[in-house]
């Protein structure tokens, strides 16, 4: 006998499972169109590998994920790709997403399959690759790619592999019926997963309200080391964390994954899919779905092709449209209502409930919380639901987080028992959403601030560097000038200066060079009025003309820079304006100097000779 532990809290809602277990699993009829969403798993959406008008075979890959996490999508039957468009997909928001619409040709012709007889001859990696190529993602709800889940990190050895057959939600019987009718397939798939993971313990957890499934599974595991653990019926024993606690006595650390404590849970449907992928070579193109509720005349379980529209499935089960009030995808505790019955069955769809108004009546108006604590008694995570409710309602999210809001698994037990009819889970979803939004905004604001600060620092640094360069150049120029002057003085003192004019020309040349160096260094720098210094007694028209042209060229350049800066609204416009004004003055001065020099030359032609 397997040792079992209990989890705190939990509820016993009416099971309502008998309605859908009276009939064996039936094959749903082929619909007119199959609608295949490109994203049925957690990760990146699959990219198309077919085009509109292509004929595809049953089992042929029609989309795959090449970058990032995800699994391919396959054609559930042979037919023609009719459209690739946005269609409503199963999602609580009722959103639309990209789907491939396949028109079956009625031939149901398989593509070439490559079954494996003895997978143990293969490399584990090859088997994992096959599981991925079969498009298998967790079929219990979240849709996490199975091959990735079967590759736990190196330091997280899986000691206990749990197959979750608890199926604790009311109404749903898909796993129950699968175990009853396909126990051998379930165990075959489980064995493949066990072979990949090499756990020391492999256990199937089944609630004690499924005696037929327990008997069938016991028979199927006879002679193996797989345990069948019969767990007491209590919602939510099939919650991953709760089932792990029941079967191992351990708790998954908050914020962690089961692999952190050496445990992994897999779903019954996933086990069947893995078995089919390996032994028959077939990809995941169909699954068992429970269709129940008082608005259908023949509730039961159906083997349904992925992509089958819900309305087609409901019609198969004998839909009484006039009685339908609420359409739920999933169970009555955690499922979500649909806005339209045209959404397709996807890899994670386990149940459709067509409920009448009498069956699942609209909740009575919310009353004030009387702090009765029934919610805390029911909470399987040992949270304080009423405090979380107060804080969520008051917008005190910090306090809600402090009381472990994010450990809430949204199982709905608290709302179920609440005598005041408070939609507690809805408040928690709201609070979680708000906190996530706040965090995202905080992150954005932090990034913007970092960017701004980095830019400020860069500008400052550049300014400093510029200043430093300017000072160095000014110093170098001053030194050079001092040296030249000293040389000139020395030359004059030695009486070697044979030609006054030559000496003066040399001076002019020096001044020009100095000016060139300085103006190039910084536009802010004071212009050196060299022209007046040089040309006061002996004008050199040629040099002055050159000077003027240079100054004009400089002015033009500065003007160009200014215009550009203005058009880009750069912050150095002001600086450039000043520089342009200075250059303008310089040009004028050069012009004046030249005019004066010309006049001088004209007045004293002889002296210049």
């Amino acid at each position, binding site marked *: 006998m397997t040792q079992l532990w209990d989890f705190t809290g939990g509820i016993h809602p009416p099971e309502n499972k008998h309605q859908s277990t009276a009939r064996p699993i039936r094959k749903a009829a082929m619909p007119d169109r199959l609608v295949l969403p490109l994203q049925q798993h957690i990760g990146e959406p699959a990219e198309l590998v077919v085009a509109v008008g292509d004929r595809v075979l049953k089992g042929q890959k029609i989309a795959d994920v090449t970058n990032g996490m995800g699994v391919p999508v396959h054609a559930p039957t042979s037919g023609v790709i009719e459209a690739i468009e946005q269609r409503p997909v199963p999602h609580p928001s009722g959103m639309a997403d990209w789907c491939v619409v396949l028109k079956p040709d009625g031939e149901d012709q398989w593509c070439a399959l490559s079954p494996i007889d003895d997978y143990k001859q293969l490399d584990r990696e090859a088997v994992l690759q096959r599981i991925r190529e079969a498009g298998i993602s967790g079929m219990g709800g979240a849709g996490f790619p199975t091959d990735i889940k079967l590759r736990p990190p190196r330091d997280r050895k899986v000691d206990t592999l749990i197959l979750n057959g608890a199926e604790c939600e009311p109404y749903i019987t898909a796993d129950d019926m699968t175990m009853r009718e396909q126990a051998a397939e379930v165990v075959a798939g489980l064995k493949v997963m066990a072979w990949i993971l090499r756990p020391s313990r492999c256990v199937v957890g089944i609630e004690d309200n499924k005696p037929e499934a327990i008997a069938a599974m016991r028979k199927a595991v006879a002679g193996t080391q797989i345990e069948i653990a019969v767990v007491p019926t209590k919602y939510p024993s099939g919650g991953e964390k709760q089932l792990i606690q029941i079967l191992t006595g351990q708790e998954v650390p908050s*914020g962690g994954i089961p692999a952190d404590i050496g445990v992994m849970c897999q779903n019954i449907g996933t086990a069947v899919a893995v078995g089919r992928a390996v032994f028959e070579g077939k990809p995941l193109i169909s699954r068992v779905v429970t269709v129940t509720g008082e608005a259908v005349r023949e509730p039961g379980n159906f083997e349904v092709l992925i992509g089958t529209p819900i309305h087609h499935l409901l019609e198969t089960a004998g839909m009484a449209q006039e009685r339908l009030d609420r359409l739920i995808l999933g169970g009555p505790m955690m499922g979500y209502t649909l806005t339209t019955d045209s959404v397709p069955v996807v890899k994670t769809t386990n149940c459709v409930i067509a409920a009448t108004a009498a069956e699942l009546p609209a909740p009575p108006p919310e009353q004030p919380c*009387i702090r009765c604590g029934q919610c805390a008694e029911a909470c399987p995570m040992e949270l304080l639901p009423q405090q979380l409710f107060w804080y969520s309602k008051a917008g005190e999210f910090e*306090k809600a987080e402090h009381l472990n809001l994010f450990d809430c698994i949204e199982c709905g037990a608290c709302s179920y028992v609440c005598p005041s009819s408070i939609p507690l889970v809805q408040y928690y979803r709201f609070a979680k959403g708000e906190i996530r939004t706040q965090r995202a905004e905080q992150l954005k604001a932090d990034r913007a601030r970092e960017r701004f600060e980095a830019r400020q620092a860069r500008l400052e640094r550049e300014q400093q560097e510029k200043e430093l360069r300017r000072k160095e150049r000014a110093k170098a120029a001053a030194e050079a000038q001092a040296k030249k002057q000293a040389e000139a003085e020395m030359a004059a003192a030695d009486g070697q200066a044979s030609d006054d004019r030559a000496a003066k020309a040399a001076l002019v040349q020096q001044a020009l060079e100095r000016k060139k160096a300085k103006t190039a260094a910084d536009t802010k720098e004071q212009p050196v009025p060299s022209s007046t210094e040089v040309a006061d007694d002996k004008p050199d028209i040629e040099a002055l003309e050159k000077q003027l042209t240079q100054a004009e060229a400089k002015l033009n350049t500065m003007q160009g820079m200014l215009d550009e800066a203005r058009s880009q609204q750069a912050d150095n416009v002001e600086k450039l304006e000043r520089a342009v004004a200075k250059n303008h003055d310089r040009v004028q001065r050069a012009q004046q100097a030249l005019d004066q020099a010309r006049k001088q030359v004209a007045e004293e032609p002889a002296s210049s000779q």
Partner: protein
Amino acid sequence: MALAQQSSPHARRARPTSRVMLWVILAALPGLLAQTLFFGWGNLINVVWCIALALGSEAAFLKLRGKPVAFFLRDNTAAVTGLLLGLSLPQFTPWWVSGIAVVSAIVVAKQLYGGLGSNPFNPAMVGYALALISFPVAMTTNWAEAATLWGGAPGFGETLAKIFTGGQTAVDGWTMATPLDEYKHKIASHTSVEVLGHPTFGNLIARGWEWVNLAFLAGGVLLIALRIITWHIPVAFLAGIAAMSLAFGSNADQYAPLQLHLLAGGTMLGAFFIATDPVSAATSHQGKLIYGAGIGVLVYLIRSWGNYPDAVAFSVLLMNFAVPFIDHYTPPRTYGHHKARRGVPGRSGG
């Protein structure tokens, strides 16, 4: 086709607040029956009068506050407040004293704080304490003498007249001190045996009172069985009294013995029906244990060394003060966490 849209869960247990409160009322009926059988019609008349006034003042104030009257009246919580006051008040309490107690319970302690679910203090006990402090004579001299309906209790008409017109006839023969009061005052000058020989105490523990307490105990056990209350508060309450009695009051010639503490006063009514008012009680299991034990200890302290013979009202109110503090430091350890996150965010705990 317009499909109904709703957030999960879609299924609900059909046990609304109104039904929870109805169960509380039903569970208190054995106690009321015992009171009537052993002390006459007084409690029954009080209960009816208090419930009527509670509903009336609740309705009037809901209207003043602009709230839907019928919606809130249907939750039965005002009726429970009236019921609890009617069960706790002395049998011959004048109508206007119980009236003031009820109106202050509903209007001051409940509606002025924001109505159902928002009151920090137990409304019935606010009303009771207010009446006890304001009208000490009326609240201590109107306890009916233990006399069974079939053996000497005043008739219905006489009781009604006494309560509503204050008729003076034969009052001395009808009333007496409660057993706890009697013991407290006599033990100073008598031995335990002498005191217990007084007819007030009867042949068992305290004539009539023991049956009333046992009936409330039975009703309380029913509430626990129905999971309307948990065992934590009542058990901690009784354990608190017992522990104090065993530790400090084992000398019967000085202090009332334990059986009197448990079965002679308002103990069982207090433990199962009053202290368990969820709105003003602590939340977590650990918190409930501290809260209940605190009430038990205070009840014993006030009864033994205070001025009042019974003390459920004051003890409950004092512990109501402590509830936010208790709640901050007694959250349960959440699944997957090493320890509970005590205190307030940003402070101690982790």
